[in-house]
């Protein structure tokens, strides 16, 4: 086992391979306060990548309602259960064990192995609230009854568990963009990646008898475009780009800004130790204890910062750029009225006003002789 630096848990940890960060690292930021669970992302991925035989059950992108939804069934609870209770005091490095460190000597990671019935209910628990909402009820803040939507892709982890567990070394992490791929010609379908990935984003294809996973839409990424699940997001809650580790973070890089500078986007289940590269702006009204388990001890601070965005035009500007372009934004700039996004060459790919102009019109349209209504 090598000692590697994991900035998400703020300490060194054990991993079977040496630390090797790619030139660029693929990453997505999701604003969970805006996801409407329309599943357009899931279908965008499905129609692009998984419409073939043996992929019927596969959703490389899925959206689950937390806390009751999950795909496959209770994957996160079962992994956390295997790992057992761990300590993480705020302001300190993670004191508990990662799934690599807690593994018995004959395994790479602590894991659970999903069976086929676990995969068969991709949308179980959808819209299930933690309590009933009786007639005449009203919500208070923070909500005592809550749920939120969690869209997920593969996290193209810096320390992938899938890669670490493959005895054939058929999984590799690309130098150019950090995308983690299963070599479709070398894989023998042992399914070790399916067992090992705590997020369960490696999946076995019973028709081709090899394992598959989200490919990060690498053909799009190679052309400077964002993945299909990002491009097609109806709620405009996502932005894909490249993240640097905190010691190389750039103020004008959209992902670095949200994760490292502004610190309003957090990795999920960072305590597992994979340094996953999908980041979430946490939902501000959900139960804090639950959110701490999912996003770590800094989630309260992230929520407080998010709540103050009204006073922060720069972050507001970046958030309105989300969903505004198919292209990958490498940098951004915001002035007092407009936000701009730029590609790798520094050419502008998108601009958006911080606030849409407000136009007031009289209720009666004299030109057509009809009353206007508010239907957009």
């Amino acid at each position, binding site marked *: 086992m090598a000692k590697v630096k994991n900035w998400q848990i703020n300490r060194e940890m054990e991993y079977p391979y040496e630390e090797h960060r790619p030139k660029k690292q693929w990453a997505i930021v999701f604003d969970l306060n805006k996801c409407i669970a329309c599943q357009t992302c899931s279908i965008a991925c499905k129609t692009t990548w998984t419409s073939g035989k043996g992929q019927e059950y596969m959703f490389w992108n899925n959206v689950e309602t937390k806390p009751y939804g999950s795909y496959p069934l209770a994957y996160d609870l079962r992994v956390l259960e295997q790992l057992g209770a761990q300590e993480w005091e705020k302001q300190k490095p993670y004191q508990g064990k990662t799934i690599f460190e807690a593994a018995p000597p004959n395994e790479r990671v602590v894991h659970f192995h999903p069976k086929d019935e676990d995969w068969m209910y991709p949308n179980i628990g959808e819209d299930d609230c933690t309590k009933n909402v009786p007639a005449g009820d009203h919500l208070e803040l923070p909500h005592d009854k809550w749920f939120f939507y969690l869209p997920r892709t593969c996290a193209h982890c810096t320390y992938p568990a899938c890669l670490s567990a493959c005895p054939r070394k058929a999984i590799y992490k690309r130098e150019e963009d950090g995308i983690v791929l299963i070599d479709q010609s070398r894989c023998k379908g042992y399914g*070790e990646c399916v067992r090992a990935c705590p997020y369960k984003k490696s999946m076995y294809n019973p028709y081709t*008898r090899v394992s*598959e996973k989200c490919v990060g839409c690498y053909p799009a990424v190679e052309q400077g475009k964002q993945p299909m699940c990002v491009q097609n997001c109806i709620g405009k809650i996502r932005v894909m780009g490249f993240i640097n580790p905190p010691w190389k973070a750039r103020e004008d890089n959209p992902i670095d800004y949200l994760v490292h500078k502004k610190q309003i986007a957090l990795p999920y289940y960072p305590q597992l130790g994979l340094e996953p590269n999908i980041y979430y702006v946490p939902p501000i009204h959900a139960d804090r204890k639950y959110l701490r388990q999912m996003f770590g001890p800094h989630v309260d601070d992230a929520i407080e910062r998010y709540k103050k965005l009204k006073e922060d035009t720069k972050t507001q500007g970046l958030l309105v750029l989300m969903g505004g372009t198919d292209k990958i934004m490498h940098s951004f700039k915001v002035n007092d009225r407009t936000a701009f996004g730029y590609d790798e060459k520094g050419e502008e790919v998108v601009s958006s006003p911080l606030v849409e102009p407000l136009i007031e019109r009289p209720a009666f349209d004299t030109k057509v002789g009809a009353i206007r209504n508010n239907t957009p």
Partner: protein
Amino acid sequence: MKFLDRKLVIGLSVFYSLNVTAIVAPSVKGDLSKPSLDETIWATAKEETVTLMAQPMAIPRPAETATAQVKVKAVHNDSWIAFRLSWEDKEKSEAGKLGEFSDAVAVQFPVKDNKSPPPVFMGMKDNPVHIFHWRAQYQIDKEKGKREMKDIYPNMNPDMYPMEFKDEGHLTGLTDEKREIFSHGRAAGNPQSYAKAGVDEIFAEGFGTSSVIKNVEAVAHGEWQKSGWTVVISRPLVREEGSHLKVGEDTFVGFAVWQGGKDEVGSRKSVTMQWTPLSIAK
């Protein structure tokens, strides 16, 4: 961790060298190019019990030994050599569905030098081993053809698959090859994704390096009864690019068994901890 493993292995091989069984393959009349469980072929061969242990080197490995021994008989007819392997396995596993694995067995031979073989753990760089790998799942391929999704999940009802239209008349130039683009493993030409001949022939130069040989000459057949499997793997004595065996000479073999029902696959297997001597009698 690796260091500990090595120590364990050395310790175990010292222990094992005390009870190594030698397998003698007598010469028999009869066709061995068809796998046969027929007792008349096997009557003259002495059955040896070979001890197996949970694979100790590569992680992930089994927490405990699932198959402690395999009973082996061998016979030859001057051009083919056949092995009859039986082991206890109360649960028949043929894989297919998600998260299910197949029962399997493998026989391994040195390639370069029959007298001094490479490490028993699947050979080493520039000193390969030749493996004959039978799986219950591959046997179904051979007997019934490659399983379709309808065979694996009879109650599944997909709307349609890409480019599989009812009215193909309107569409010209739709080939199976074009459809295969939607089956990544097949499009990449992965042999795992195509029907198997019942047994795979494999070269390996250490763990995780195995690659299957295209023209399989070996044949195999297995039968499961309540107590376990009996599998016959038969191969030509001389395999052009692979291992060469000679009547009247001694060599070595290695064995491995997987119990699919215990989630064994790949490196999760029971193996021989050192080479077993094999005499091919005149």
